[in-house]
């Protein structure tokens, strides 16, 4: 949500309507758009507006939301992380192989995967910050490394199974919750991860310095910001989020080789819809989360409108172009 508390109109003793209008203008577009889309969905599918329906929606959207929030850290620092999708795939097929239907290996698998995520992010960050490879290329290379490595490790054929405990994280519900009835496990993960990321980005030095780097890396450096180290941390966060998203997605959809797909493109799209500037310096965890929700809601809407799955890609394409064009026009008006 908007963080600033300033409202010049209020100071100038403007009318009530003018004050309200100033507030409205400041709301990032993603929120009204999400509400509009969600409204449309609920009209076509009354179930959506029920607690049950909403919880099912949250469960489905959780992986992408987490990925997008992680991608935010890299985008805000001025880079791209194209390796997220293949990291998701790695998580799923790797976990399957480690667990191989043995419940007791569930947590071992999760720990190993998160460790991998940290390493992958570290390497990405190192290549970008110290070897000075543009992040587009560096994470592209990592995409291939991870995809190839993961498929090689599992022999390229579906092997192993995810344990029930593991799958519960991604697809299970907690029952008998007061008021809402059931709450998805992935929702809990989402809230925990989301809270951590919100704190990191909005409440700690890390977030402020990332934004400073994305805005003006030279000025940041001259103000004592440790640019290289922070870039590495941003990539680590992005990769770990991809791992967590992968755990959720694996639970939700089962072992699959194409699950990760091009999720990095979707996470970038979600971020862009959430108002992130692609060259860095601006972004908010909340807005990005709602950008992801908007994308997912769009899927539902298109489904309900009878447009088959593929058309969501087309609509997504239109939306991101519109989002960036709009942001560009908005910035121009400032001058």
């Amino acid at each position, binding site marked *: 949500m908007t963080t600033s508390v300033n409202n010049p109109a209020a100071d100038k003793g403007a009318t009530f309507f003018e004050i309200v209008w100033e507030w409205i203008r400041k709301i990032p577009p993603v929120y009204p758009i999400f509400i509009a889309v969600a409204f449309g969905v609920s009209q076509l599918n009354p179930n959506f507006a029920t607690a049950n329906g909403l919880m099912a929606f949250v469960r489905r959207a959780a992986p992408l939301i987490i990925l997008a929030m992680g991608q935010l850290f890299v985008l805000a620092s001025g*880079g791209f992380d194209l390796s997220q999708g293949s990291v998701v795939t790695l998580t799923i097929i790797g976990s399957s192989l480690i667990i191989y239907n043995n419940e007791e290996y569930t947590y071992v698998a999760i720990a190993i995967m998160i460790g991998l995520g940290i390493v992958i992010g570290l390497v990405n960050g190192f290549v970008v*910050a110290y070897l*000075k*490879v543009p992040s587009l290329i560096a994470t592209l290379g990592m995409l291939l490394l991870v995809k190839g490595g993961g498929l090689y490790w599992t022999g390229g054929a579906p092997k192993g199974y995810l344990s029930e405990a593991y799958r519960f994280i991604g697809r299970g519900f907690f029952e008998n919750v007061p008021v809402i009835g059931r709450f998805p496990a992935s929702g809990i993960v989402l809230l925990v991860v989301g809270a951590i990321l919100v704190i990191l980005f909005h409440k700690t030095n890390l977030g402020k310095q990332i934004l400073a780097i994305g805005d003006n890396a030279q000025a940041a450096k001259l103000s004592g910001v440790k640019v290289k180290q922070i870039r590495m941390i941003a990539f680590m966060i992005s990769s770990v989020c991809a791992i967590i998203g992968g755990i959720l997605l694996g639970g939700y959809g089962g072992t699959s080789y194409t699950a990760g797909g091009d999720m990095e493109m979707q996470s970038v799209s979600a971020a862009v819809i959430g108002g992130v500037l*692609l060259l860095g310096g601006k972004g908010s965890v909340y807005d990005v989360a709602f950008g992801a929700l908007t994308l997912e809601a769009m899927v539902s809407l298109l489904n309900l409108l009878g447009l088959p799955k593929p*058309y969501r890609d087309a609509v997504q394409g239109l939306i*991101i172009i519109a989002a*960036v064009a709009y942001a560009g026009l908005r910035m121009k008006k400032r001058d």
Partner: protein
Amino acid sequence: MSVEVIAEGKDKRVRSNFLKKIPQVYYFLVIVLAGGLILDQFFASGNILSNPTILRNILVRSVALGIVAVGQTFVMIGASIDLSVAYTISLTSVMASLIMQGDPARVPMALGIVLLVGVAVGFINGLLVTKLNVNAFIATLGTGLIIKGVLNGMFSSGSMGSVPKGFQTLGYGSIGPVPYSIILLLAVVLIGWFILSWTKFGSHLYGVGGDILIGRLSGLRTSRVLIIAHIISSLTAVLAGLFIVSRLGAGAPWVGPDGVYDLESVATTVIGGTALSGGRGGVFGTIAGVMIFGVIDTVFNQLGVDTYLKMVIRGAIIILAVASYSVRSKREAA
């Protein structure tokens, strides 16, 4: 002029000698070939790279990627990027086979239509980037997704039509020992080289990509130049699509993304010496980059190396190659 640049300028003068003038990608190509030959000797008794069939396969495999990479080189010299090529390839393959329906008489019509579509896609990309100021990454990603969506939505099942046998000679036929496909690739490369090095447009493209402000001060029509570059990129995607469909016999929506043509064409172009920031590079370097991948792929294939390990090596090469170019730069990369 800032004092830092003087030092750099003087440095450069001292260091510039003949050897440094050869773009680094050719060193890599030589290393890769040498490496391939060594592996060949040790593990396959020298049978791989001396086998003409295999050598030809290296080239044919690289044709589709090579054609697209040439187009990508154009936009990247202009400091832009084209991520829609994979889906344009798919679209072309599907449209071509649907229109042709196996009938040789319909081939010219099909060709005409897909070329027009390519021009349209490139034109739209160019407009988005120049007139709406949309970041090229997003603009071309967006159009790619739109094409993907429409394609998968309309053509996910049912007959895709087919390509007449005659047309398939493009994919399989040859004049003597030289396959048509290689001739096609060669033609595209030479035309691309010609445009870049010998025409005013090419000169202007380097100008616009190198520094758009200098371009404007020199009176260049910067928007027009970029739009044409994007059209060229899409047209090469169309050509690649036609080549692929001539080999497959019928089009399919998954051919583009399957080959990862978008990201791989970017990778080979950057390895070939074209900078993401524009203003320099060329098609020969890009083709060298494509060849590097082609040789590695083929040699490892013949040696029975796991497909997935090949992917890993590809990824590592991309990173290491570009790192070796960038390490000297003073800029902070993002």
